[in-house]
């Protein structure tokens, strides 16, 4: 009798943490995270900075391995060509070929804009993880543009070093891609919106090939990232992410 009751409690518990499709809010966020990060990645990206009176395109080649290592090199325009950014664990380095110097980026520049875009250096370095630093709640199913999505609300844990008050995320049910994410401050005011478009197959994965960041309080301003190439299959050694390598990778 007693055993049967324990069994019953266990069964009820396991059911209550799942929704109809057998996925918890945290499970969905984990899947999105795994899907988008991957382990080894080479990418070529075109970044378009849109401002009210001008636009500007920057070509970027980047390599990354897990969360700890990444290397990004600017390939165009000619003025910025050869600039490189290296992230090794918690350090960020910047190679500026025009002055022939390696700059270690300190915590005080983390808030500044990266290459004039709507990303800050901090966004690129961010240690916070959508999985560990937030509590997740599955709100509803909603259709965003043509995608059938889960709507999730992420609230940062009290001690997490996260500046947002809450994050609302719409995740495609089929491919587990973030279709739209809204970042709010603690007063519930929208700060940034992240949108993804054009989901395509890259190798075995399906990922968005165009993404944009739209700051809420700056009209007619956004940054668009267009993926030209993704490569998940070529292995990269840890030693690839070195200062020597960032100087001559263009």
């Amino acid at each position, binding site marked *: 009798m007693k055993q049967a009751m324990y069994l019953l409690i266990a069964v009820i518990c396991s059911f209550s943490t799942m929704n109809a499709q057998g996925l918890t809010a945290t499970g969905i966020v984990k899947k999105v995270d795994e899907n988008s990060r991957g382990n080894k990645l080479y990418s070529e990206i075109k970044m378009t900075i849109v401002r009210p009176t001008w636009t500007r395109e920057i070509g970027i080649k980047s390599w990354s391995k897990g969360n700890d290592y990444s290397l990004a090199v600017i390939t165009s325009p000619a003025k910025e060509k050869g600039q490189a950014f290296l992230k090794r664990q918690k350090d960020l380095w910047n190679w500026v070929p025009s002055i022939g110097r390696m700059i270690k980026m300190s915590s005080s520049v983390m808030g500044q804009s990266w290459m004039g875009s709507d990303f800050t250096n901090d966004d690129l370095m961010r240690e916070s993880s959508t999985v560990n630093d937030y509590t997740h709640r599955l709100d509803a199913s909603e259709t965003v543009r043509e995608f059938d999505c889960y709507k999730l609300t992420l609230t940062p844990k009290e001690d997490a070093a996260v500046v947002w008050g809450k994050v609302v995320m719409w995740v495609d049910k089929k491919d587990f891609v973030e279709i739209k994410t809204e970042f709010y401050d603690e007063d519930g005011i929208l*700060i940034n919106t992240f949108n993804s478009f054009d989901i395509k197959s890259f190798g075995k994965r399906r990922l968005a090939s165009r993404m944009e960041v739209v700051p809420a309080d700056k009209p007619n301003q956004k940054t668009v990232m267009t993926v030209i190439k993704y490569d998940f299959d070529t292995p990269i050694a840890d030693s690839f992410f070195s200062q020597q390598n960032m100087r001559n990778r263009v």
Partner: protein
Amino acid sequence: MIINLAWKNIWRNKTRSFVIIGAIALGLFSGTYLSALMTGWVMDTVNADIKINLSHVQIHDSTFLQNSDIGAFFNKTAVEQQFASSNINGKMTCRLKLNGMLASANNAVGVTAKGIFKDTEMTVSDIATQIPDSFGVFLPDDARMPVVISEKTAEKLKVRLKSKIVFTFSDIHGNMQSLAFRVSGIFHTSNGLFDEANVFVRYNDIFPVTGLPDEAVHEAAVLLPDIETCALDFPKIKDLYPQLKVQDWKELNPMLSMSLQWTNLMSVIIISIFLFALTFGIINTMLMAVLERTRELGMLGAIGMSKRKIFSMIMLETVFLTFVGSIIGIILAVALLLPSLQNGLDLTPLIGNDFEDFGGFSSIVYPILNVEMILEIIGLVILAGILSAIYPARKALKLKALDAIRV
């Protein structure tokens, strides 16, 4: 007898005497008023900066000042014990100083976070009293990870009380560390630069992630009873810590101590210029008084008044004129200053609040009346009177009695 005569002579031509007394009074009045105002302004700034920012003496590791390196620390207990056993009458508090970035959802600014011990900090620094009512409290003990930021920083980050902000800095190993704090208080001092650069957190909240050894601090601040004792005790404190860099407020903010000396010099210069101009007025008036009275002075000589007595009579007339003028001027200045000694003089309509932005000059001035200074001024005025009377008095001496009568 001569004194009586001299005093009566002044009032023979009332208009002329009143004009010169008025000129002296006006000059002295503005001189005293201005210098009291200027000294007050600078002393306010000095005291505020000492009470909030500098303290009287600061102690650092000798390499800390070059680049605020997190590794330039010293042991808190050792320094505090040495200070306690030295019999210097003063209070000491220790702080961590960490440079990093403070970020909200809206913005990010570079700041220095001071990790403080609340108990001792409040005996040394007035920062806790710089939080206006309804702008929270200074790091309450029961709060989780509180931080106190300035009004300027709060505006930049667009945060309010209870908002969460993230502080990112490099620890001793060069690794980035991020901590989430909640705003517990928002302060406002008259020093805009200080406000922009500093935030306050509890030592125990931030210390564990710095990777520093136990009891490590970057700064010890000492508050002594006043500036005068600081001058005496500073060398003693310096001798206590030969291995550390010990600096007094003058070294910490050379501009401030220079402006204090500069103001004193300026007061003297301004009053000297007033007096120099007045000297010509006095010479002119006394010369007229002498030339006008040629016949009379000749008569005095003819009936046997000695040259010395004539000379001292003219001298006394001048001294009386200047003395009366300066007393009236100083009484006027003191009368006008008295109400503002307590409540201060609000210069905001004249100069706005702009001075706060460079280095803490408040727009409300509490003038300082210095009795010593007033006595000095009176002395200077009488000296000027005597000097300027020499020429007219010599003129009077040169008169030949018989020639003078015949005029």
